[in-house]
């Protein structure tokens, strides 16, 4: 089981999923029409480290975060 959290302006509660890699997550989230714009512009972190590959393996207890476009300052 991994946890998926949606940060900042994405108004969506966290999900718990049984998946083994980010490629599976991509397919699940692409089914959600409300998320389609966010998927285009969100970065992804696993356990607070930004990742760049869908092959990133996931382990039980991992936390996946979706980070929409930022504007601090």
């Amino acid at each position, binding site marked *: 089981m991994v946890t998926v959290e949606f940060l*900042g302006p994405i108004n969506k509660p966290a999900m718990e999923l049984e998946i083994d890699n980010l490629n599976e997550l991509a397919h699940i989230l*692409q089914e959600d029409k409300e998320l389609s714009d966010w*998927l285009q512009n969100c970065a992804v972190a696993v356990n*607070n480290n930004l990742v760049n590959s869908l092959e990133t393996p996931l382990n039980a207890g991992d936390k996946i975060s979706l*980070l929409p476009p*930022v*504007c*601090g300052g």
Partner: protein
Amino acid sequence: MLSIYNGPLDVPTILATWYKEEAQSNYGAYIPFIGTVRSEDNIEGLSFDIYEPILEKWFQEWEAKAKERGAIVKMAHSLGDVLLHESSYIAAVFSPKRRVALELIDEFVEDFKASAPIWKYDLKEGKRIYALDRSTAIQGSGLLAKGDAL
């Protein structure tokens, strides 16, 4: 040092505190950058969300980069609402010499704008509206929109 404050920053106090903290550290140059909420587009103010775990990591990486160049960085940011002409952001560099300080403050502030996990909202008529058009997608964004066929 990374400090998160609820609401606007007390700029004079933070600038003075950092100056005094490093008074005996033998840094020749201290450059703070102070960001203040501008009146534009009929906003009443701004509001901020912060994801602290990733912000801490981002900041620690900058502490390491600064250290390689003999410098240190400090940062303060507001959480929640900050009204017009109040300040929400201070970044600062201390270094022995001016060139490192001038280059580092520029790189630090620009990378902050592009990468720090902070989300900005306009406050308009009491509502909190995500400032998407002024926001920057973090490098590598869009990963989950791709996806290979399973």
